[in-house]
């Protein structure tokens, strides 16, 4: 992009730029500022400058360090599963088996249900002894009477499953639209050359989809923590922090414990970490989009 072009179009971009700046950059800046002061909202005392005290404090906060681990688990495991199931679903839907047309609508359902409702659905599903899961396991002759949400490992697993359930349809639909751009003739000629079903997908579908997969993964990663309402309803971050990612800990710190400055420092640190991780991919995506536009 050349600066002369920027100058020419600058005026047109300005309103969008201003709106985006107000809703993204300004809050970030305010959050950062808040994190540098000791603020006690109940006492009415003026904020006290404390520099990077909160950030240093965070590094020895075992609950925060645990929430980082949980965050990583809640991002990478569900996204990997979403990709796996999404790809499988997309390929199945492409095969146009009987009934796949109305299945498309059904598959979309989890993606359009509000997350808080999804959380509630899963909570009801895993109620020990009375939920859908207990009923299903009863059909198989297993007497499942344990409370999955009460033990750290199973609670985390439940959140991962719910999160996968919510995210998979989106991945499947994007990948499906990608697959559908691949000409039928490609598959046909491959089949004529003796390629198996597996080989056609391994050597045609997946390589063609690679850039789409990359984009989808980045977006899912950025959005993985939008499962906040699910966690809120399902586990409340418990038991003992087993399902408490950084943003949930920040919420509890800010609104339950009223340590607003401390919560702000978590958010800032987390934002920086996410940007550091995702920006190379985002830049790459932006570059290829720009290249495509030319």
């Amino acid at each position, binding site marked *: 992009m050349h600066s002369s072009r920027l100058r020419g179009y600058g005026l047109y971009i300005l309103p969008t730029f201003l709106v985006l700046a107000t809703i993204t950059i300004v809050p970030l800046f305010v959050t950062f500022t808040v994190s540098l002061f000791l603020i*006690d909202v*109940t*006492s*009415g005392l003026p904020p006290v400058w404390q520099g990077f005290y909160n950030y240093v404090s965070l590094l020895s906060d075992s*609950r925060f360090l645990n929430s980082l681990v949980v965050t990583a688990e809640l991002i990478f495991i569900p996204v990997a599963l979403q990709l796996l199931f999404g790809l499988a679903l997309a390929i199945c839907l492409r095969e146009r088996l009987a009934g796949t047309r109305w299945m498309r609508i059904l598959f979309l359902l989890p993606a359009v249900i509000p997350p808080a409702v999804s959380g509630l659905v899963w909570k009801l599903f895993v109620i020990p002894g009375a939920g859908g899961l207990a009923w299903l396991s009863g059909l198989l002759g297993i007497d499942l009477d344990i409370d999955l949400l009460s033990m750290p490992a199973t609670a985390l697993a439940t959140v991962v499953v719910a999160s996968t359930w919510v995210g998979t349809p989106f991945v499947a639909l994007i990948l499906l639209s990608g697959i559908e751009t691949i000409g039928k003739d490609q598959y046909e000629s491959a089949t004529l050359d003796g390629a198996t079903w597996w080989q056609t997908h391994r050597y045609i579908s997946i390589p063609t989809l690679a850039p789409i997969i990359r984009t989808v993964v980045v977006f899912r990663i950025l959005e993985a923590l939008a499962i906040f309402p699910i966690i809120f309803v399902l586990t409340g971050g418990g038991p*003992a*922090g087993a399902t408490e990612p950084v943003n949930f800990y920040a919420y509890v710190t800010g*609104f339950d414990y*009223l340590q607003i400055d401390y919560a702000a420092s978590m958010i800032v640190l987390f934002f920086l970490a996410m940007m550091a991780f995702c920006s190379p991919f985002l830049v790459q995506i932006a570059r290829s989009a720009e290249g495509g536009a030319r």
Partner: protein
Amino acid sequence: MKRTIASLALAASLLASASAVAQDKPYEGVTLRVLGTQQPWETELQKRADQFTEATGAKVVFDLYSLTQGIQKVTVELSSRSPAYDLVFVEASDVVRFGGGGLLEPLDDAIAADPDVDLADFLPATIDANRIDGKLYALPHFAATQMLYWRPDLFQAAGIDGPPKTFSEMMDDCAKLQTPEMKCTAMRGKPSTSENIWYWTQFLLGFGGSFVKDYPDDLTPTLDSPEAVEAAKFYAKLLTDYGIPGSVSASYDEVVIAMQQGDIAMAIEGAPLAGRILDPKLSKVSGKLGFAVPPGGPAGTFAPFTSQAYAVNAASKNKQAAEAFLIWATSKKTMQDIAANSSFVAVTRNSVWNDPAFIKAHGYDFGHGSFTDAYRDTLATADPHYRLPIAEFRPAADRVGAALQEIVTGQRSAEDALAAANSDVERIFRRARLLR
């Protein structure tokens, strides 16, 4: 239509000013807004609010939420200094963070002006818990504690004379009471200030430990002390060897159900829950229970204690009317009426505890300790600072609650888990400038 409404409004305001002149209803035209929790007390109070309106003219509107949500909303309203609510719900541990910061209106003047309040009639701990630097910030209606529920029939069959008075007796009794079919006890195991910490603190204090070195002079946390470790080990042994399955994550609900179903021989649990445990429709053990003060340790008996109360928002525009309502709501007459005619038992006034109508309604006695006596005696031992009255108590106690769970599940030894929790609590206190 618009005109009709306007003229109606005009008529109403004329009426209002007319009666204000008459002075028989001092708060005519005032609408008080109450922000609170959806609990039995509030439900009953709501039904009776008309009486207050009739006497003073002030209307009362209630916005009630679940306990956690209610506390959170009160926090946001008060700290933003919003005048939207005149009266707010506070637990004793919250009074310190709001009252100290000037967000609540001190009630001393209003109380002094009204001889009917009779502060001496309140259980002393409930008043002390709401007082900071000599100023009273809330009038308590609810005294929360835990007492010992026990099954005399099972104790007798096991050859035990009476309820345990000490922790070691409790452990010994459990060894005798437990059978392959029946666990000895149930307790809260879910990690949180309001669950396992609410239960465990009595062990901590009973074994001679404490959260900090010397409240309020030295707040250095002492959760890694030998006493704290001993208390944690005792709790873990009681829970794993003698607790119901699923104790690790049990909240008070599981304990109440285990008691109701006759699955256990004894439990230390909230006295206000007696209504549920004794309900013959829900409970298999109704009529089979004894009641006693919970056991203590070498350092004494420390039954859990907190109070729930309402306070006047310092930003309220109707402070006088709000004070009048609060005094009316916690008056002898109102409290007596509610306690004698509902399932609410956790009252804060001695006169109600001794009221014949109240004893008749709630004085469960099946020959092994009367409920009201045990409850009253338990409250008499109450330490107003069972929960440390500092704003950082909740994050600190939540952290210790997580450590207790690690100990119970065997993830870490008591020494390691508490040492880690102690250093986190120290960091939390240091951050809040409670430590140098």
